[in-house]
């Protein structure tokens, strides 16, 4: 269930469940489009935010759906900025090492790719431990 979401104030709040990943992507691509930016690039931003929320659901909320994730977008000075806030366990995705895909396959494991993708697709990925909340800031430069 969507708690609240309003494109007009550039903010979406979801429960910490993968059920809502499609809402997250739709919110990002619509926000991106409302600024008139190239749709192909918007899909990459939506994928990055999907990866960020998937990480938060898994690592900050341990797959329990009673938490909340707030996503706020803004665009200024040739930057598209997404701020993602949660109240789960502290989890700094920048601490995740780059994946060894061949090695993980040998162990029959998936996973560990989300952060790497985010870093490849976005220009900045910043994590802030704000005490009771975590904030992840994803920035895409606009040319």
């Amino acid at each position, binding site marked *: 269930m969507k708690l609240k979401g309003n494109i007009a104030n550039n903010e979406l709040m979801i429960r910490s469940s993968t059920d809502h990943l499609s809402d997250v992507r739709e919110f990002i691509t619509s926000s991106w489009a409302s600024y008139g930016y190239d749709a192909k690039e918007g899909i990459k931003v939506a994928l990055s935010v999907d990866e960020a929320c*998937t990480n938060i659901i898994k690592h900050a909320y341990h797959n329990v759906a009673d938490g909340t994730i707030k996503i706020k977008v803004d665009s200024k000075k040739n930057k598209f900025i997404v701020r993602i806030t949660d109240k789960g366990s502290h989890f700094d995705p920048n601490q995740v090492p780059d994946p060894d895909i061949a090695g993980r396959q040998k162990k029959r494991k998936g996973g560990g790719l989300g952060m790497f993708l985010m870093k490849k697709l976005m220009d900045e990925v910043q994590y802030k431990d704000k005490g009771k909340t975590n904030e992840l800031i994803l920035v895409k430069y606009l040319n």
Partner: protein
Amino acid sequence: MVDFKVSSRGQDQVSIIDVKGYLDAHTAPELENEFNKLIEKEQFKVVVNFDGLNYISSAGLGVFMAYVETMREHEGDIKFSNLKEDVYNIFDLLGFPVLYEFFDNEEDAIVKFK
């Protein structure tokens, strides 16, 4: 909103998994189930046909990583066909073309198993 469909069919001892829609952390377990069913039936030669798949996140890619070794161990493999450019680009960004074979169409992938 769940917008993902997965099904499998057989052709010349090769199993073809058709994926359609959006493959993310929410829908990836459905693809895992499909692989589990094939392993149960000892079908290890798999072509995944991506015609109709609009979107993939790393959770989807993780499914192939988790199953490919089992297939290869049994003289099979997971091969990919009919990927849209946006979807292929994600595989490419993560270096999958070094580890998997990609084909423009399903028939070419099936032939590689012979």
